[in-house]
């Protein structure tokens, strides 16, 4: 095909209308923005405005944010952040190893396809059914718990081990079920994106595999690794359903505290609820902000 005809049709079909600066074209995106405003931006704006108001008098105040330093709220933020950090780091590390093992570890290719498909499903298997599945596994009456006790004499819930699924550690084990697969899903294309030429070039320059990883592969993968871990952090920081089902609120998490605030059965200071919600949004915004920045850095290298 030659060039001229397509250029001609482009001019003919899409009216450039020289001389008319103002364009009504922006009207095309109005429904989208109106919808987003109605069901997300304005309602969150209501929370934001409310967080700076006294719940009773409506007078402007920052008292709600000062109240965030109450011990139970600080504890909730602390626990949420701790669980998110632990599952992000552990999930990130082992998720990376898992992705590495199936892609570069010399395993049969079919395992890789299996793992990727399964990860797609598992990263969506969260919330209530996930909490239930772990209750059946490692819960007080769980089958693995019973198996260990009956066949091997290991009493997980006994004094010696003192394990419980309904604690922080238990929740972390459950959260990892959707953290691993997410890491695998994001890291696999990144590991794939490491070009054969880079390895060959470093080998030709006399680098050992270890040196190749230390000086070439890891530095290239680091933004993706870090970014994904931060994404995992946000992923579990915002989780509510899993923890609610598993612990019925016995572990203090920000999401559960806010849930109590919504159902209105714990403390009736709605302004404080708004401030807690805004605190969460700020932490999530920081996490997602860093993530998308790091992702842009990594895309420069791993364009495929």
């Amino acid at each position: 095909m030659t060039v001229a005809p397509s250029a001609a049709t482009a001019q003919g079909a899409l009216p450039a209308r020289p001389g008319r600066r103002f364009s009504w074209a922006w009207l095309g995106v109005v429904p989208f923005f109106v919808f987003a405003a109605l069901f997300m931006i304005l309602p969150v704006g209501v929370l934001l405005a409310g967080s700076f108001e006294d719940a009773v008098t409506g007078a402007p105040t920052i008292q709600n944010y000062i109240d965030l330093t109450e011990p139970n709220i600080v504890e909730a933020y602390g626990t949420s952040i701790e669980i998110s950090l632990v599952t992000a780091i552990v999930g990130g590390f082992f998720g990376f190893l898992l992705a590495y093992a199936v892609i570069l570890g010399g395993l049969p290719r079919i395992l890789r396809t299996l793992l990727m498909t399964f990860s797609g499903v598992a990263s969506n298997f969260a919330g209530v059914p996930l909490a239930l599945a772990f209750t059946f596994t490692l819960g007080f009456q769980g089958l693995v718990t019973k198996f260990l006790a009956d066949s091997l004499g290991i009493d997980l819930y006994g004094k010696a081990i003192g394990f419980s699924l309904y604690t922080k550690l238990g929740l972390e084990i459950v959260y990892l079920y959707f953290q691993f697969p997410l890491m695998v899903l994001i890291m696999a294309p990144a590991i794939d994106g490491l070009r054969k030429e880079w390895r060959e070039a470093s080998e030709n320059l006399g680098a050992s595999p270890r040196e190749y990883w230390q000086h070439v592969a890891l530095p290239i993968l680091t933004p993706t690794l870090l970014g994904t871990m931060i994404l995992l952090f946000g992923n579990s920081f915002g989780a509510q359903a899993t923890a609610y089902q598993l612990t019925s609120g016995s572990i203090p998490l920000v999401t559960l505290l806010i849930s109590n605030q919504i159902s209105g059965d714990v403390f009736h200071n709605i302004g404080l609820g708004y401030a807690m919600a805004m605190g969460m949004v700020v932490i999530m915004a920081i996490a997602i902000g860093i993530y998308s920045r790091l992702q842009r850095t990594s895309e420069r290298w791993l364009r495929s």
Partner: protein
Amino acid sequence: MSGPGYGLRAPGALEAIESSARPRPRRVGAGRIASWIIFLAGVTYFILPLITTIAFSLRLQPFGQAYRNVINQDPQFASSLIYSGFIGIVTIVISVLLIVPTAYWVRLRLPRVRPYVEFVTLLPFVIPPVILVFALLRAFSGGPLPLTTSDEGLNVMVVGAYVILSFPYMYRAIDSGLRAIDIRTLTEAAQSMGAGWGRILWAVILPNLRVALISGAFLTLAIVIGEFTIASFLVRPAFGPYLSLLGHDRAFEPAAVSIISFGLTWMAMGIIALLGRGSRQSVQVAGAR
């Protein structure tokens, strides 16, 4: 095609160089064994909860009684699944109607608006479902739009929230679908045959986005069907809250319903995987955590 330089090389030269580099000494041993160990450990962790849940669901005698109990004797099982499925479909239709014209228009005429659209579609990652539903309850429990007072209003809110949750996946799926087709040429061709905008979108762009639409749709469906947080705070008779309640009340039936729910997710993801062969997997972050 290729530039003149490529044609001039000695035939087979590159292939010869490549194949000479190929027989690298294969490091069998420690690395490979470690890989197997990591893989098997991962598989164990992933499979164990599923196996125990299946085992638990089959414990009630006679065989399969827990499944029969929920499917035949619990009208709420079917009604909640139908409700969530219906809400899911409405969500998908509205999401597609909003995102396709927007993504198309931004690509074709308003590239400057792209960062803003992308920002808005990223926001659901920043605002967790529990906060979104909190905000919606506060915004619509009075004022000019009191939606919380009626069933219809609450249904509107739940669909609104789910459409927002679907934005990141829908937008990404559709936008990469649009990147793969030459929308400019298609639009010009349609215009030169006299099609209006509505017809271009419906008869030209949409059919070309089939794969993207289906994968966005099933991902949305998978999120909506199991969603708990938003549905429970809006007191909707949905599948997530139903399963949660069942989990507190009964022993074996929740295992059966969890397996059914996992099966549904598996089906939705399987369809996406089948269609999206070779393309990048979309990644889920918001939704039913």
